[in-house]
């Protein structure tokens, strides 16, 4: 499933991040608020650590279930001697009970010394090497979908009910309904192969050739963004329409401020909070989910593609490490967003 998360702060309160995120008493006493914030941050961080631990355990358990014969045998190489297999078995703790295996695995992960089964390559080094395309993809797409999502959302809200709104709604809906790898393949075929407008996949580093980097990334960016633009524009549209009904906006309008200023000042500022929350989480999600699919189609050679190829080879260590890292990144980011949200919006009390 492509980008996006439920628009709910991860403490599971089920609150909507609507602009009118009101509810709850206003904490007017600064000192009390600071105390509350401090407690909140500590609670949140503790919860973060617990979830991180749970993620590593869960990931490890999932991959323990993979029946790849004798993992020590696979790790040691195709026709290794019994000595070598035994050495590998001891190193990874395959002969020990499961919690020892877990500890040894985590030791290797945190050490940066996980070696992939089939390729004798250090997994973490490989991941670092594969980061540039993935980060380029995620950040570039993130900017595009934020900008266009907000733009379309605003336009839809301002022209609510009229043809532009309907058109944008259709575009948004179709975007949400599209598998991201299908869209990528279609673009690759028409823009790349048939009309030769853009390169046929692959990645060019920014420092080597900035224009090349841009042309190679353009189609992947669009493919990844189309889905999210749809989501964001719809959420923003709903938020904006909600806020526009709010009293103080009506008051502002009554005061005679121009429509535009009203929108920008009051509406945008408030709905933006929800959007930013969504964005932070989606960004981490893209690295984990959408990236795998898009990178495979466009052969970008990033972390996602590395994961996909490892899956095909049933090469467990890279998939395990990547899954762990991405899930942890999502959780960390979500904690950061929660904390920021609490700090910045004085009206929210979770």
């Amino acid at each position: 499933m492509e980008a996006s998360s439920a628009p709910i702060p991860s403490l599971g309160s089920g609150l909507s991040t609507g602009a009118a995120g009101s509810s709850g008493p206003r904490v007017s006493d600064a000192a009390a608020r600071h105390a509350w914030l401090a407690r909140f941050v500590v609670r949140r961080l503790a919860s973060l650590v617990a979830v991180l631990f749970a993620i590593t355990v869960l990931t490890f358990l999932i991959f323990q279930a993979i029946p790849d014969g004798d993992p020590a045998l696979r790790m040691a190489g195709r026709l290794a001697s019994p000595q070598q297999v035994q050495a590998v078995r001891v190193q990874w703790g395959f002969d020990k009970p499961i919690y020892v295996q877990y500890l040894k695995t985590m030791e290797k992960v945190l050490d940066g010394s996980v070696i992939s089964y089939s390729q004798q390559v250090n997994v973490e080094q490989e991941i670092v090497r594969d980061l540039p395309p993935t980060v380029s993809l995620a950040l570039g797409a993130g900017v595009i979908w934020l900008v266009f999502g907000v733009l379309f959302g605003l336009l839809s809200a301002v022209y609510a009910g009229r043809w532009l709104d309907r058109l944008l709604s259709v575009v948004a809906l179709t975007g949400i309904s599209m598998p991201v790898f299908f869209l990528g393949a279609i673009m690759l075929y028409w823009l790349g192969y048939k009309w030769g407008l853009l390169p046929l996949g692959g990645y060019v580093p920014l420092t080597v050739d900035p224009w090349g980097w841009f042309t190679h990334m353009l189609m992947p960016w669009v493919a990844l963004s189309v889905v999210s633009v749809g989501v964001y524009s719809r959420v923003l549209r709903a938020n904006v329409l909600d806020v526009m009904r709010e009293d103080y906006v009506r008051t502002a309008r009554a005061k005679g401020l121009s429509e535009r200023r009203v929108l920008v000042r009051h509406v945008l500022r408030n709905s933006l909070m929800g959007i930013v929350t969504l964005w932070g989480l989606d960004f981490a999600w893209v690295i984990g989910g959408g990236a795998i699919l898009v990178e495979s189609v466009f052969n970008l050679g990033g972390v996602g593609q590395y994961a996909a190829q490892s899956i095909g080879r049933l090469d467990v260590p890279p998939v395990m490490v990547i899954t762990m890292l991405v899930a942890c990144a999502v959780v960390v980011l979500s904690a950061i967003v929660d904390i920021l949200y609490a700090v910045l919006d004085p009206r929210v009390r979770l």
Partner: protein
Amino acid sequence: MRTLLRNRVALAFGALFVAIVFACLLAPVYAKDVAHTGPNDNHITETIDVGGKQVDVVSPTGVPIGPTWKGRFFLGADSNGRDVAVRLLYGGRNSLEIAGIATLITMLLAILLGTLAGYMRGILDGVLSRLFDLVWAYPAVLLGVALGVALAVGGIDLGLFTLHSGSLLLPAFVIGIVFFPYVAKPLRAQALSLREREFVDAARVQGVGSLRIMFDEILPNLTSSIVVFVPLIIANAILLEAGLSYLGAGVQDPNPSWGTMLADGIRLIPGAIHLVLVPGIMLVLTVLSVNVFADGVRDALDPKATVRGRL
């Protein structure tokens, strides 16, 4: 309900979805009477009559024929000389079946656990909420892939039931698990606020047991949220299944599904683009129709959109 019935666009798309499901269910009829071939029958070295000329179904270098718009190979052939239209319908059965079962699993788990967590509170809620957060923290595709790969080779044996590796229930199971926190969390939130309402208090004071309360008082009030969620989950399940099958962690060969058909087609770009377009457009149409219908349902049942949609 009436609002929904007045929303003609939503109804039209809903009907489209039903039509697609129906067509897929009729796959064997199409295979036998129209295309005269099964989904797995290879016709690699055969030729068919196209506009008077005998054309290879698959060329000597392995390029399959495109749509003929006739009874046989209506939408063309794939590299094994199989009828794409037939496979599309059979694949649709698999994709839709998986999405349906996954949705069922998600909803059941979410309703059960979400209500329990919201109503019972305390330690049970604490544990369940952590569970929701944990599964929710995983990027769906990655979790789906991890589980899919782990289970695809050996299947799973949970004591209660066993799923073999070729079974369609495996991807359904994986997808169901991946999605349940998205529904469980909002349902829990609603249960949480519902339990403070007077009628629940009244029931409790009367001495009605917790389970009865959950069943009789809380659950009915969650119905509209539940109904709003169902089409959303269906749409996302279809998309996730396609993604997982594309990566090889979903439906396993030789069962066709729209995702595996897309994978095969993408592999053959630029030659036989119909192999990408056919399953892709079908996927988009199906998901779009569900999404539009879902919008309609939401407009009717939840106009304030307290339950926010897209996952």
